């Protein structure tokens, strides 16, 4: 029984306790505290985050002649840290006042807590997997546990959940096929055997395996043709659940892909695989998939009028950045990809929690029906502001660091077109997060929101903590780069040379401490000028406005939020999203058509004819 087993056991106990006691009033706090204990248990093996050696679990099983093992390395630890951290923030957020109101409206906060702790447990099992079989088991557990979280809101959420599980099962089957082929080639499910045998695989095998695994794991990441399920499934989950799912759930796909495709099969081989009739290698193709995963969902996010959907669509796009960074295969790019996992998780958690706080007060996430909340909920505004700066990748927040690393690497590796693509994606991000903050917090306050207050501290505290983390890790990215480097080492990449404030390479360096110093220095000078140079500002009531000589009352809408970016969207259009929907529905139409045919066969009133035909054909098969 070592520390890893302790961690997994505590996690299991958390899930069990919150499952059994899900009707109890205090279960929210109990779960949150138990998650904290898990966090501490994780910290007790924090040596993994600083280049420590792999910890093997003492639990070993042999089922049907197949050994199952579990272990933790730097990469697992890095992902586990984000997982438990996100769960803690969401759980604390959901445990207090929020739960009471949720319950009053027919929700079951205990069930939500249970679903989250179950998700944490299954994710830890996945992260700890020590061979392909335990990886698959963990993968499926995560898939089905997140289904629970997705459908527990009922109503439309169940339909999104169903859609998710169909995609997830398809992905899982693709993975199972891949694992089966590996078993055939190597005779075992062990990582070591695969790594040893991978060099002998033929090109065909490499291509088939990579495609199977990337498609399978890509489903959960929301890689491009498989992304349709994600936004709705995440957005319709009750608020804290969305925050948790958005922060980490789809990164499990990235983790598994890193282990199997990058580390074991070896992505390096894919550079050598040329795609016929093009100038692209298999890796280039994947990079373009990643690039389109950045662009399309981000511009789809721009169209959303529901804050939760807007954020969830971003989740898909940001996954593209991580994929892009890791596909670059160099220290800088892969560090950027991994760092972005952490950064994005913090941003998304902060944003979803902030939006949930807004919904808590206003009862709507509709961006057309909000506005001007900045005076009413200033701290929530601050958290949202920090979050969107991070998400858009603007200094001084942490999102900037990871994106900078990815851009830098793209330039170093000489991929200008992809660089342009990512910049286009970032442009979309900035536009859409501006829509988010503008439509919720800026502009004209609606009459019905006149009397709302800031959310209670039980909700504010987790949000503020997350926002602080965003700022600190933006200010001193070296804190996280420590862990990233050991994760890189665990993956077999060359670790990035980093400093506390950023990176220090021969071909470019970044020091966030210096940058932030300049930035805040600039702000300070500005403030000095503003306040010192005769502050003429006058506070007026938010509704105290007039335009064109007419006094405006609250019921006159002058705040431009309805159908935001209409002009821009008119130029872009939504053709790309329609394409994927068309793909999906044509697949379903085919299944529907076929199943109609099969039903007609079973409906036939002369089954004896089929017997005759089968008998004749099979005799013909043997004789003819």
């Amino acid at each position, binding site marked *: 029984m070592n520390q890893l087993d302790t961690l997994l056991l505590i996690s299991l106990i958390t899930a069990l306790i919150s499952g059994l006691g899900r009707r109890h009033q205090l279960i929210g706090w109990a779960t949150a505290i138990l998650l904290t204990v898990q966090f501490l248990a994780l910290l007790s093996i924090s040596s993994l985050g600083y280049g420590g050696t792999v910890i093997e679990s003492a639990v070993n*099983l*042999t*089922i*049907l*002649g197949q050994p199952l093992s579990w272990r933790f390395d730097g990469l697992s630890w890095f992902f586990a840290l984000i997982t438990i951290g996100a769960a803690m923030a969401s759980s604390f957020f959901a445990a207090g006042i929020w739960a009471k109101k949720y319950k009053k409206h027919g929700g079951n906060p205990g069930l939500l807590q249970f679903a989250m702790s179950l998700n944490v447990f299954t994710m830890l099992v996945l992260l700890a997997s020590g061979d392909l*079989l335990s990886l*698959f*088991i963990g993968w*499926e*557990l995560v898939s*089905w546990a997140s*289904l629970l979280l997705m*459908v527990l809101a*009922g*109503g439309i959420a*169940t*339909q999104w*959940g*169903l859609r998710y*599980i*169909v995609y997830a*099962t*398809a992905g899982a*089957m*693709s993975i*199972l*096929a891949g*694992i*089966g*082929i590996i*078993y*055939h080639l190597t005779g075992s499910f062990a990582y070591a055997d695969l790594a040893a045998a991978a060099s002998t695989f033929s090109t065909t095998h490499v291509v088939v395996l990579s495609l199977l695994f990337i498609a399978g794991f890509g489903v959960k990441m929301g890689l491009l043709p498989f992304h349709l399920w994600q936004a709705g499934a995440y957005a319709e989950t009750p608020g804290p659940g969305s925050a948790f799912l958005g922060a980490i759930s789809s990164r499990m796909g990235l983790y598994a892909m890193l282990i199997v495709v990058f580390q074991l099969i070896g992505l390096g081989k894919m550079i050598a695989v040329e795609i016929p009739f093009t100038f692209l290698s298999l890796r280039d193709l994947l990079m373009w998939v990643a690039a389109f995963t950045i662009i399309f969902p981000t511009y789809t996010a721009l169209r959303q009028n529901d804050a939760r959907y807007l954020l969830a669509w971003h989740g898909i796009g940001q996954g593209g950045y991580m994929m892009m960074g890791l596909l670059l295969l160099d220290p800088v790019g892969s560090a950027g990809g991994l760092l972005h996992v952490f950064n994005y998780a913090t941003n998304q958690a902060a944003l979803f929690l902030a939006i949930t706080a807004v919904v808590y007060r206003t009862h709507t996430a509709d961006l057309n029906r909000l506005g001007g909340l900045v005076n009413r909920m200033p701290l929530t505004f601050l958290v949202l502001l920090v979050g969107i700066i991070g998400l858009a990748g603007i200094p001084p927040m942490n999102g900037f660091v990871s994106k900078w690393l990815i851009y830098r690497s793209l330039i170093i590796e000489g991929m200008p077109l992809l660089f342009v693509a990512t910049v286009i994606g970032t442009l979309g991000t900035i536009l859409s997060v501006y829509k988010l903050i503008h439509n919720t917090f800026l502009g004209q306050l609606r009459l019905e929101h006149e009397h709302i207050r800031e959310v209670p501290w039980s909700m504010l505290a987790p949000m503020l903590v997350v926002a602080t983390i965003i700022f600190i890790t933006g200010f001193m990215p070296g804190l996280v780069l420590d862990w990233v480097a050991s994760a890189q080492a665990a993956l077999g990449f060359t670790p990035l040379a980093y400093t506390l404030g950023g990176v220090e390479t021969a071909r470019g360096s970044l020091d966030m401490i210096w940058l932030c110093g300049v930035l805040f220095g600039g702000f300070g000078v500005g403030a000095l000028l503003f306040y010192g140079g005769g502050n003429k500002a006058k506070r007026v009531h938010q509704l105290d406005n007039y335009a064109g000589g007419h006094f405006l009352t609250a019921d006159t809408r002058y705040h431009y939020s309805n159908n935001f970016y209409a002009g821009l969207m008119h130029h872009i259009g939504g053709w790309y999203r329609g394409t994927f929907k068309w793909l999906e529905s044509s697949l379903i139409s085919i*299944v*529907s058509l*076929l*199943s*109609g045919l*099969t*039903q007609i*066969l*079973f409906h*036939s009133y002369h*089954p*004896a004819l*089929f*017997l005759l*035909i*089968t*008998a004749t054909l*099979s*005799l013909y*098969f*043997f*004789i003819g």
Partner: protein
Amino acid sequence: MNNIAFTVALPLLAAFLLPIISNSSKSAARFIGPFVLLAMLGFSLAYFNMLEHPVAIALGGFRPPLGITFHLDNLSLLMASIIPLIMLVLWPYANIEGYREESLLLLLAGSASGLALSGDLFNIYVFYELLSVASFGLAAANRTGAAFAATFRYLVMSGLGTVLALTGIGLIYTQTGTLNLAHIGLLASQLNNPAGLSAFALIVIGIGVKAEIFPVNGWVPEVYSTASPRISALLAGLISKLAVLVIVRLLVVAYQGPEALTLLLVLGMLGIIWGELSAWRSKDLKRMLSFSSIGQLGMVLVAFSIPGEAGMVAGIAMMLHHLVVKPGLFMLTEHWNGSLNKLAGAAKSSPLAAVLFMLFALSLIGVPPFPGFWAKLLLVTGLVEANTPLYLTALAVLLSATVIEAHYLMHTAIRMYSKGKKKQVKKLHQTPFTLTIISVFAVVLITALITMAPLGNKLQHIAAESSDRALYINTTFAARHTPVRKQISLIKQQSKVQ
């Protein structure tokens, strides 16, 4: 005293005497059925424990190729123990109207154990017919017009099937001059020609009517929708597996060539496609389960078509898994029935049943760590190991079918959990034990999940034993209880077991 014959003789005896007993004392008649089943269970379990290596028992005391033998290995004894177990669970304790249904159930039990144990081709045919006739009676026991019509169509299909099977047996006898499976195995080289393979095809299609093999399974949705859930559970769970077992025995002893396997593979693959697609399209619970049963049996067939031990272990695992899960699911239709659209709110009205449905559905889809996953894993690795384009196609079919399966099962589950109008869910007139019975299957499933490691070892042992052709032949020819040990000069070929 070789008392394994009691597993066949006792239920038949009880069934014969039941009309007389029930004339004199109705209450005594009620206890006979369960008592006999318990006795059957005792006999087969006693053998199961004693058994170290397979044995064959010569009934009537005649030396094997001449007389009929019962072949006792782990597989047949396992089935022989499962038969009374499942019958005990599904026994209609509460709603017995007359002795006839009970009598038919006992006959079903007796013929089923005969089918599981028998090592003689024609004897298998006789027990198969007995099983069929008993199942016709049970399928019509509802006595509704629809049940009669469905049973009639079932009977015609099954009758045609047995004609084909009998033709197949006739062809085998014409070529080999023997009926004992082990002896046929010895002469297998004579059957490795178009005529021999055609005989196999005829038997597969004939027996396949009961094994729900595509496309001779048109009766399945009709009978399962009109018969009572217990009977559907029995037919889908137990009877279909016994029919598959016959095919497997034949496959092991005589038809190990690739052609026979290909036939099974193709039929199984089509069964998966057709069954799962139809289930996807169906609109009521019973028919959905019937079609899914067809798909599952297709998977079983695909598993057995994998050559060697890998196929055997995958097939047995799939078979046992379906044996536990499908009866449980069919028993749920005693709880709710009817259109899937009207299932909304079902989970609220009976939460335990909904949880059990989820459990069975997850295992059926093959979600780890449920037993269904391990069965499916064995199937996948087996198919990949076989590594021919056809087997890989079967793998693709299997995996796509799983997606479709997940879709319709989860859609149904989600409908159950969604909010619905209160009066929409019709609760059927149900016997008090329904939920208990379903829970029994669930407990078995969970026990299997917990004891997966030892269970897997046992499974591999069983598979190794039952896929060993030479062992089967040797066992039979060393049959016990052959007091007369005269040399039979005519049987020259048996001297060398291949």
